[in-house]
């Protein structure tokens, strides 16, 4: 056999096997598979530069799962959560979403980043699978379609609060400098909101510095900004680049106030900027001090799991996402049992049930708009307080 013929044979075989593989999964008429529990999927960034968020979220999901299954699951049947890593990019999120949907999950939690959501959510929308986003804050996420909702309030609602607070702490602020990562969807979306809020308070930014998501050295941008003698610095950066920038900012001698956006809203910034994290102002969609039974239960579970630490917002939001799905599933199952019901129709009914409910969560009482946007009543502002050693700290709520 000649090399050419061998190749033709090989190509033919490859084509055939690919074709066979391509004509597989079609789940439209399957019944819901409840063996081992009611299936729900989560897709989080556990690797890549967004892994610091995924870690917080994973704990939240685990606690919510324990809570749900500890109190009877979905009317006596346990809730089964499949967790997949999406990496920190879009193809990873797409692949993980597709994998979960093919597994026959009734609803999805995730993905971690707004940028991933714009790519992966349309897949779920097309295949009719409810999505509850625990951390997407960019504008336009629930608008992707009927099946897309979120429990993370949009940054346009929360971000301006931190600026108001900064003005309260130091009323004479005049010169604001703004930083954002120009190649990141979250950063560019949030900085527009920050800049608008600054202008409304009469604080026209004296300089706007652009960075890149994967940058580690910000000396150029910082020097350029410090030449303008700013007395307030506003950051829309993610945890890793933001943490490094704060560190360098302080090392280069900046002493004024720093306001950061939701991207730095995690205790996982402590090891990055260490003692320099101190004093950072961040608006919060969650307060550990909220005095409700739902929050008390969440706090107790978190403290038991993490040796007395205080839960961060991302954990509370992830917990809320699974709680919301669990409650909606329980209500739906009571009306018409999930066992043996057609998968596609059940997914649709679950979405309707989810949007119709009111939920007592650690974030307070929440509801959804018909579009899937969260309605939450209370927001807060916290200031980071680092311990003397600079190893650990806490988000102290400002009253």
């Amino acid at each position, binding site marked *: *056999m*000649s090399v050419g013929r061998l190749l033709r044979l090989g190509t033919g075989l490859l084509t055939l096997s690919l074709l066979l593989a391509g004509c597989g*999964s079609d789940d439209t008429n399957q019944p819901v598979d409840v063996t081992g529990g009611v299936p729900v999927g989560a897709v989080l960034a556990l690797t890549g530069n967004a892994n610091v968020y995924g870690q917080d979220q994973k704990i939240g999901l685990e606690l919510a799962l324990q809570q749900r299954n500890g109190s009877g699951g979905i009317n006596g049947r346990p809730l089964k959560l499949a967790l*997949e890593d999406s990496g920190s990019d879009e*193809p990873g999120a797409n692949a993980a979403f597709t994998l979960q949907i093919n597994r026959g999950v009734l609803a999805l939690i995730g993905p971690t980043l707004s*940028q991933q959501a714009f*790519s992966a959510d*349309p897949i779920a929308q097309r295949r009719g699978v409810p999505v509850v986003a625990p951390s997407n804050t960019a504008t336009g996420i629930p608008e992707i379609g009927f099946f897309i909702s979120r429990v993370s309030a949009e940054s346009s609602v929360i971000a301006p609060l931190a600026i108001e607070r900064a003005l309260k702490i130091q009323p004479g602020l005049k010169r604001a400098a703004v930083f954002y990562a120009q*190649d990141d969807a979250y950063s560019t979306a949030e900085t527009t909101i920050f800049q608008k809020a600054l202008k409304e308070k009469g604080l026209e930014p004296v300089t706007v510095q652009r960075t890149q998501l994967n940058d580690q050295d910000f000396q150029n941008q910082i020097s350029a900004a410090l030449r303008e003698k700013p007395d307030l610095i506003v950051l829309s950066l993610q945890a890793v680049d933001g943490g490094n920038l704060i560190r360098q900012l302080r090392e280069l001698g900046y002493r004024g106030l720093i306001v950061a956006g939701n991207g730095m809203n995690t205790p996982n910034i402590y090891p990055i900027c260490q003692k320099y994290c101190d004093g950072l102002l961040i608006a919060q969609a969650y307060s550990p001090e909220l005095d409700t039974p739902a929050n008390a239960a969440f706090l107790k579970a978190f403290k038991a799991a993490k040796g007395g630490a205080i839960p961060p917002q991302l954990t509370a939001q992830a917990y809320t996402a699974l709680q919301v799905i669990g409650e909606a599933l329980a209500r739906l199952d009571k009306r018409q049992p999930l066992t043996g019901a057609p998968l596609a129709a059940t997914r649709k009914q679950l979405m309707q049930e989810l949007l119709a409910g009111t939920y007592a969560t650690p974030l307070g009482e929440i509801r959804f708009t018909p579009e899937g946007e969260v309605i939450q009543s209370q927001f807060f502002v916290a200031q980071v307080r680092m311990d003397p050693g600079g190893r650990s700290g806490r988000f102290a709520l400002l009253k």
Partner: protein
Amino acid sequence: MDAALLEQMLLGSLLALSVYLPLRCGQLSLATPGFYAVGGYVAALLSTGVAAFAGSGATSPLPALVAEMVLGGMLAGLIALAIGGPVLRLRGIYLAIATIALVEILRVLNLNLPFTGGAMGIFGIPQPFAHAGGYVLFTLALLALACWLCQRLEAMRLGRAMAAIRDDELAAASVGIDTPRTKLIAFVASAVLAGITGALAAHFFNSWNARAGSFDASITTLAFVVFGGSRFWLGPVLGGLALTALPELLRPVGDLRLILFGAVILLGPLFFPQGLVTAERLRWLAALLRLGRKRGHQAPQAP
């Protein structure tokens, strides 16, 4: 295996072929992701901005997709044609650096142009196929066509000229091969293929942004070729399929999967420095098959 993963693998193969084409005449170009991004933007802008391309039904019309692929390929090819002349005077690692710079320039342009949607990019790109299976069949046809052309190249004057340049550029020039022109053709063909792939990928991924064409993507696509082998078109195709699938297939091992993936990339070139597919290995495989067949014929005669 899932159709969506299969589609990503096929796209990986096409990109690997795009890196392979310049390598075929000894040019290490890392510009593929830049042209891939350009092709994707063409498709994304046309199908979200022009009503005729978006169509009115549940799926966008197939001829529109083909038109976008042609236009995306053409634009990428034109850019390659314009810059190919000066850039291809560089050799080896200098060419690689120049093409990385090109990818960076295109990326920053894509981030800052008024119509490319900044970091958020363009999303809600209409779908020409209702199911990922449709993409798979379509991409498979495209890949088969690309492979066929690469196979034809082996026997064509152009392909021989490219191989001659790869082996010794000076000797090739001295026997009358127009080396600058041949190299330019390979570079442009690589860009056209990347542009076409990008146009298809933009639809498949729903959204398109500047991260499609990053330095990371340059390295990933190069790894496809290094892993699979750069001497023969089957190498990049296999490399693209395997290295795209591997991180997904390794999901059952959990947290270790990216470490294992890294180990495979590391061990591949260590044990197969020429890549998985080499001419010797193909010949050896053919001989093995022939032997197997002979034995098969002889078997009934044995007492």
